[in-house]
């Protein structure tokens, strides 16, 4: 798609808009995963910026982390040590996997900044669990206030509405792409989504709405070619991997990634006050394997496969990601029982291992094609 509206997304990936918000006197706060209540960070007057990893040679971070943790965290720290995240005032992180939470402390000791906090989260949904989460969020509110933030019911309401609109718009982009009206390659589509994590949300909403309106207005349709697949995992931060999937004969039509569908689905929660709505949204969102049992992820995965028309699932998992790797055999078994084939590939910090990935993908597509 030669869309002039695609360019701002690609530009935003450089984090320039986020840096600009800081140079104009604002503060940006980093976070690692989508269990971080960015709505509160935003409502307190800060710009939430999701920290990225990707592919890089890990040298400085090697002295601070073991090499058997996920590449995402190692590369993220490497980038921070190189000064890439100097514009952040600290890190707030929802308490998900141990590595993410451990890295908050390593980051604090080695990068500096004024706010570092992990938000304890409940594992199940019950009135007591919701009370627990409310207490956790009140603790976060106090931390944000201490860092110069100012959150009120009114500002939280506005932030919930803003993020709700962003999620709804991105879900519309998913549907437009599925219907062929948004003829973006899988790689470009995930670049659009990725920009949503590092762009000030007000700007991102405008960009996403423009892209949606442009796609909705077109009469042309061009559905992705290739064998339809769903990609499953946590972070797929290197869109080139999606490009390889499509070049090898697949068409990525759905995902359950935390850099994708899992963050943008379930736009808003319900409740009488903004905090209740925030809690409701995080309790009802599609869970991450670090927050739930594998069995509870099966219905969502199977439904996504069925709804998208995917003929197979490609698991793209971060090497050493214990929560996802532990769930993998259970999910594969469940998929197999339903006649859904799957393929597994581990991603590393040093590179894509394109030869191996292509061999597996081409074989997979020949088998299921």
């Amino acid at each position, binding site marked *: 798609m030669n869309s002039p509206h695609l360019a701002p997304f690609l530009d935003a990936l450089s984090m320039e808009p986020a840096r600009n918000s800081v140079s104009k006197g604002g503060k940006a706060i980093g976070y690692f995963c989508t269990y971080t209540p960015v709505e509160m960070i935003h409502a307190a007057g800060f710009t939430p910026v999701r920290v990225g990893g990707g592919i890089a040679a890990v040298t400085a971070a090697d002295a601070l982390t073991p090499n058997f943790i996920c590449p995402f965290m190692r590369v993220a720290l490497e980038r921070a040590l190189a000064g890439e995240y100097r514009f952040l005032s600290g890190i707030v992180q929802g308490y998900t996997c141990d590595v993410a939470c451990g890295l908050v402390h390593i980051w604090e000791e080695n990068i500096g900044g004024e706010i570092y906090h992990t938000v304890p989260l409940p594992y199940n949904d019950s009135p007591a669990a919701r009370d627990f989460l409310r207490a956790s969020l009140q603790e976060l509110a106090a931390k944000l206030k201490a860092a110069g933030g100012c959150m009120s019911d009114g500002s939280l309401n506005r932030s919930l509405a803003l993020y709700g609109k962003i999620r709804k718009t991105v879900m519309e982009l998913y549907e437009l792409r599925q219907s062929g009206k948004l003829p973006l390659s899988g790689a470009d589509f995930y670049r659009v989504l990725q920009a949503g994590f590092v762009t000030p949300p007000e700007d991102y909403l405008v960009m996403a709405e423009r892209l949606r309106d442009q796609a909705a207005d077109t009469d042309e349709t061009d559905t992705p070619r290739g064998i339809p697949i769903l990609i499953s995992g946590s972070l797929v931060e290197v869109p080139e991997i999606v490009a390889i999937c499509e070049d090898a004969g697949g068409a990525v039509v759905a995902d359950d990634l935390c850099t994708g569908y899992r963050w943008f689905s379930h736009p808003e929660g319900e409740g009488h006050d903004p905090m209740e709505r925030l809690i409701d949204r995080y309790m009802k969102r599609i869970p991450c394997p670090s927050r739930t049992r594998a069995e509870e992820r099966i219905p969502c995965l199977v439904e996504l496969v069925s709804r998208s028309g995917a003929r197979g699932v490609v698991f793209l998992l971060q090497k050493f990601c214990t929560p996802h790797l532990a769930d993998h055999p259970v999910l594969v078994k469940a998929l197999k029982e339903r006649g859904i*084939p799957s393929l597994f590939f*581990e991603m*590393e910090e040093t590179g894509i*291992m394109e*030869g*191996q990935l292509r*061999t597996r993908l081409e*074989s997979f597509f*020949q*088998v299921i094609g």
Partner: protein
Amino acid sequence: MRGDISGRRRESPGCTVEKPGSGATAIEERDEEMYTAGIDVGSITAKAAVFKDGAVLGTKVIFTGYSAGDAGRRVYEELLGELGLDASSVSRIVSTGYGRNSVTFASKAMTEIICHGAGAHFLNPHVRSVIDVGGQDSKVIILNGEGRVSDFAMNDKCAAGTGRFLEVMARALEVDLADFGQLSLVSDEPSRISSICTVFAESEVISLISKGEQRKNIIAGIHDAVASRIAALAKRTGIRPPVMMTGGVARNIGVVKALERKLELPIEVLESAQTNGAIGAAVIAARHG
């Protein structure tokens, strides 16, 4: 017209002639006068096979060296020369292996997973699982009754459980790799190699040497370690008999025997184990006329 499936042999200098199993009946020959070829460019060796009338006429193996593309062309031209064939008589070429896309003159590139499955099915249509262990990859391929690949798994980015691992160990032990298999069979007490990492296992082997452990026992231990790695992959994939082993490492009887013990299954190894991928590629080329 269906080709000759009797597997007639032709004498060719330096070439091996393979007798097909009844799996060849699945191949519909489009032109009985035309030959097809398969070229398998692996990380260590490049293999070629020429196929006609439902039979493999010859195969060739050379070292890959630096350029995968050059190796593919060279092994193909050398095989044609040995068979006294002109390139114009070959109607279709399928390339495979990690260097498959470097063989620019091939009609089509297919993965080695598909080609090893096709080769094994052609040579023995009863085979349901193929364990292919080459220079840098080990793969387990499950075939259905029609010889189609129904599932597969590959090792991750790790040399343990591959031909490269054995090469490193042979160097550390100053033993010719060709002697590895037989030497391990006379071991009465295989050493325990605890590490599954090639680098650390090499250190462990050096430590065993310095302790005065006998070579045959160390080699048997190395084969056990390799077999454990491959067996885990096989069990994860749901291996089922009959099992055939292909790839260069299948020529190592020590690994094959260790693997049989780990899997508690007999493993068939044909003379053509190393060229099975190229044979499969040539068979696929014939199938698609």
